[in-house]
């Protein structure tokens, strides 16, 4: 069982953070960030060509993180690979020591840099979770026996701010039934709304790590507000807009949210989008 999975099972407040592989082969600054995060978080998510933007692969970075003794979470999207490649990559990840896999549909390439690419989406998220579970039993999708089988700690995403929310609740049930042991969410700024969502999904015995994104500037908050399904209370928008140092204020907001989450949530998933060096301070101030 992965270290991350053990921590999830211990019912402690679990902290994950997210890193983006670079566009190119220079991993130096990314690995520096992993050194900052590795010792203080329970898992480091590595994104899979986020926003369909073509980057260095998640699996390679996860392996590098693993070699440093930290706990990587491989993000795997359904966008770019068919069922043959997906299964093959799951086996490869396991052989490289990567056991935590977060399965998501992936941002469509139409809204990214590669509008002309052929999207694959051969399997959907519920199916890919099911397939990963099946590989664990030693057979592949067509029923062939595997010589050596993997063991994963599988995760999925849920969006508590999507609407209609009933559909997200149903999807969460399907994903958990398919084998997702943990969930990470889109950014949460409205704690009360999140608490409401938790009530709706309380029957599923899974761990949910709500997402927080570091708001780094007044401009960034505009970008966030334009993102579908991100709900930021006016109070927070005003605090950023009126702050003399918006980044500092953003960090403070993050710490405050995490502090509140500590009292009732399973953990938190921190996204700092390029500003990961501030995460240690955010965590420190949330205690």
């Amino acid at each position: 069982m992965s270290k991350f999975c053990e921590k999830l099972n211990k019912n402690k407040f679990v902290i994950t953070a997210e890193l983006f592989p670079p566009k190119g082969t220079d991993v130096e600054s990314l690995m520096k960030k992993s050194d900052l995060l590795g010792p203080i978080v329970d898992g480091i998510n590595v994104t899979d060509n986020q926003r369909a933007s073509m980057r260095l692969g998640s699996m390679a970075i996860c392996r590098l993180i693993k070699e440093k003794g930290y706990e990587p979470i491989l993000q795997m999207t359904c966008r770019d690979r068919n069922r043959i490649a997906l299964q093959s990559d799951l086996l490869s990840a396991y052989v490289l020591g990567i056991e935590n896999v977060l399965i998501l549909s992936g941002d469509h390439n139409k809204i990214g840099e590669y509008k002309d690419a052929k999207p694959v989406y051969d399997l959907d998220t519920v199916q890919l979770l099911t397939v990963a579970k099946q590989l664990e039993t030693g057979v592949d999708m067509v029923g062939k026996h595997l010589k050596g089988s993997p063991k994963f700690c599988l995760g999925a995403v849920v969006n508590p701010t999507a609407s209609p929310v009933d559909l997200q609740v149903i999807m969460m049930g399907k994903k958990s039934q398919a084998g997702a042991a943990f969930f990470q969410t889109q950014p949460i700024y409205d704690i009360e709304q999140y608490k409401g969502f938790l009530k709706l999904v309380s029957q599923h015995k899974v761990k949910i790590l709500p997402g927080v994104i570091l708001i780094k500037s007044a401009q960034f908050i505009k970008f966030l507000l334009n993102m579908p399904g991100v709900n930021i209370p006016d109070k927070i928008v005003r605090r950023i807009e009126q702050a003399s140092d918006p980044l500092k204020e953003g960090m403070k907001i993050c710490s405050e949210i995490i502090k509140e989450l500590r009292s009732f949530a399973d953990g938190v998933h921190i996204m700092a989008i390029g500003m990961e060096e501030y995460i240690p301070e955010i965590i420190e101030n949330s205690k």
Partner: protein
Amino acid sequence: MIITVQKPLEEIIESLKQYKKIFVVGCAACATKCQTGGEEAVKKMADDLKKNKKEVTGYKVLDTPCDVRIVKKDLSRLPEVKAADALLIMACGGGVQAVERVIDMPLYPSLNPVFLGTIERIGIYNEFCKICGDCILAETGGICPISRCPKGMLNGPCGGAVEGKCEVDRDNDCVWVLIFEKNKKKNVKEGILKKYMAPKTYSKPVKLNNKEKK
């Protein structure tokens, strides 16, 4: 029906640049409905070709140019076809290739086929079926997530559905929200969405017959 749009005229003229005498083939079925290959469109194309210094030996709007039998019967023996240097086919790729199968002459398409479409009204087409070979409409209350969800999600929506709109194109409804809401309204009892939808087969029940007849 197969929805087509015309290629830019410059591209068509460029593809015909080695040829002087052109015969134009139209389509009385889909391309007529799309106004891209019917009588009117063919005549307009003949005029445009003439304006670009081509000689048009003739034209023919075939009932269904995608039917090899029709091409054989109604096109292959026309003397105006034989008199031409090249054929310009105003039909979908199925039509172009039926003609290719029958007539050994240089031939060029004038249309870009885009999808199998449901017609709302003139110029408003919806891709509601991707002809996947194994229809699952029975499971979804008659609304197809394969064609109408950009991610082809079979088990329900992704996390991007907000206020019922699709994350890939906010002008569009998320098809899973549609499936959910409409089936609720129609009182469909089978619990759409509750059940696990297994990965689809993409192997088709009809074999590709890709052989040249000797």
